[in-house]
């Protein structure tokens, strides 16, 4: 499989770099030595990169499989198979580098509108590859990867859904790395689901409050409310800044946001906490009375997102040069840099990942510098 149109030496290096240490190299001692050298070089590159900040979560839109197949005059479905091989390589690089979370856009709800034959072949391929991933010698066990399937699983065919559920069950105890496979997913569907669940929660709260369960916490609510009003209402900016200063990176930011929001959201009557990118501000609201709508907050929606199992991505990479999100992680990528290399997904290589991580490290210092200005 050709991955590059560069000179012969760089092409050989590319192929060798993409070869995993576990794969048996064909072609004698020279290939074996070359493969070993490239593996060593790759580890050196990763050691250098590891000195700087590394992203905690990279997400990929694996675009370009069909165009790759067309370009190489391959059969239908072969582009997706090539895409799966590229996925395994990229996963290996990411996990070797030390990136904990990797998510991929495997199949969108919009993709169901493709030709039925193509959809069926992709479903069959997914089931086959999920089962392959669960084999003993696969990358999943090598790196201790926990798999999450993210999306509206009810839209999948039963064999795929069963395979996916099995994969999640079997890898549930793995803790080293996480792989999130977005399948039958669109961001708008995810948001609608989160809205539904939030409304359901609040509806249940209203029903519970009608049965008089809230009244016991009345005086405590007022006390805390006064505390918030006095300390925060006229100094919302300072309150936001002081919270913001305690934040170091995205992961901690999310945790802090959740901690503060969860701590206060059930214990006050006359304030609404809304959050924007980790900053909490207190705003005025009508009094919380029995039977009134319990206010839905940002954290309520966030906790019902399918992607709540992972922190927001630090980098989004979409291959094939298309500069759009195609309804993928719209909520989670609001502050995430977007990269769109022109390479088709099956042709993605180590150099693209290294380039993106270097960009992240350069961008990371700038963002940290900006944060210190507040």
């Amino acid at each position: 499989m050709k991955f590059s149109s560069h000179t012969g030496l760089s092409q050989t290096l590319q192929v060798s770099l993409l070869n995993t240490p576990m794969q048996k190299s064909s072609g004698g001692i020279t290939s074996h030595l070359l493969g070993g050298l490239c593996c060593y070089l790759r580890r050196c590159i990763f050691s250098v990169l590891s000195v700087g900040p590394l992203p905690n979560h990279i997400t990929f839109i694996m675009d370009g499989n069909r165009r790759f197949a067309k370009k190489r005059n391959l059969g239908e479905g072969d582009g997706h198979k090539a895409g799966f091989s590229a996925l395994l390589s990229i996963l290996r690089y990411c996990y070797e580098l030390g990136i904990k979370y990797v998510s991929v856009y495997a199949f969108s709800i919009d993709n169901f509108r493709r030709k039925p034959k193509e959809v069926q072949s992709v479903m069959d391929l997914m089931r086959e590859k999920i089962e392959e991933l669960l084999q003993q010698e696969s990358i999943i066990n090598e790196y201790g990867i926990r798999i999450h399937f993210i999306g509206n699983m009810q839209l999948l065919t039963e064999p795929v859904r069963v395979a996916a559920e099995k994969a999640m069950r079997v890898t549930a105890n793995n803790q080293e790395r996480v792989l999130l496979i977005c399948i039958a997913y669109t961001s708008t569907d995810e948001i609608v689901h989160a809205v539904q669940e939030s409304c359901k929660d609040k509806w249940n709260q209203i029903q519970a409050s009608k049965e008089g369960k809230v009244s016991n916490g009345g005086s405590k609510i007022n006390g805390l409310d006064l505390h918030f009003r006095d300390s925060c209402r006229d100094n919302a900016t300072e309150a936001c800044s002081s919270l913001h200063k305690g934040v170091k990176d995205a992961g901690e930011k999310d945790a802090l946001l959740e901690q503060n929001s969860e701590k206060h959201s059930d214990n006050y009557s006359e304030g609404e906490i809304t959050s924007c990118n980790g900053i909490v501000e207190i705003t005025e609201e009508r009094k919380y009375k029995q039977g009134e709508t319990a206010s839905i907050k940002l954290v309520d929606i966030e906790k019902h997102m399918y992607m709540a199992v992972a922190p927001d991505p630090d980098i989004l990479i979409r291959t094939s040069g298309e500069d759009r999100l195609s309804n993928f992680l719209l909520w989670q990528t609001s502050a995430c840099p977007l990269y769109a290399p022109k390479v088709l997904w099956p042709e993605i290589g180590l150099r693209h990942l290294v380039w993106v991580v270097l960009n992240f490290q350069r961008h990371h210092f700038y963002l940290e510098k900006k944060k210190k200005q507040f």
Partner: protein
Amino acid sequence: MTFLSCRFAIFCFKVASRRAAPSRSSSKRSSSSLSISWLSSPSRGTSVRKDDAPVSTGITASVPYVSRKGVSPVVECGVPMPAELREELMPKHVAVIMDGNRRWAKMRGLPPSEGHVALVPPLRMVVKLCLCWGIKVLTVFAFSTENLLRPKLEVDFLFSHFERTANSEIEAIMRERIKITVIGDTSKLPKSLQKTITIIEEKTKDNSRLHLIMAINYGGKYDIVQACKSVAKKVQDGIIHLEDINENIVEKELKTNCTELPYPDLLIRTSGELRVSNFLLWQLAYTEFFFHKKLWPDFGKDEFVEALKSFQQRQRRYGFLS
């Protein structure tokens, strides 16, 4: 040793990035035979020079529509569309993140307020081109929910600047039949600005040539949360059932329901930042992004044409077209 290796790697990266293409857009820089002084107010009838021959445009002067083979059509406002753009492929809704004003001021040794003053002329230019080239909706990210965390002095200046600009441009806005809508949490804005917004929205509500949506104290997540609250209220009031909540219902509650074209076709962000920064999250599902390295005050007609040309070359598949 590893520290030195890291420094060497970063040095190599900087050298390589200086040699890399300056812009992420794939199209070449388009040339324009007309240069428009975007610092001039269109309400005074800008004179545009073409090949040293003055051509009067004057916003109020109507130029007859002439369709000539191989020549761009001249529309009512008198700014011809460049030959490399096609009228039928124009985006209907363009969104803009006007980024880089403070950096522009800092580079010139000016205070941030000067950067905010400098954001108006290119905005005026883009509005004029949208009017001329048939773009129906223009949404601009003027002030985000995160911007509230900036120094109070700067925030106060921004709000007073919005108010002054709105009051001074109202006549031109009415003359050009631009409809203005402000989306965002306006309850946190100064009362005088809220009043100005209400007056402008009321005055321009029947205009239909261009819909200019200003996102002030707006965040994509805020928009979705407030839509969710509205949906919850409807569920509580028995207007809709919980199981009936779908994308259409959520979409109708978003702030962008003020237009029939809530989904931008093209998003332009200046200053080289490659992210959306909590702007129109839901609405950007299938939007084409165009990132340009120039800072917003330096964004001109050429850059706008470059963005439109890049958009017109895109293949939009929506997940299922081949």
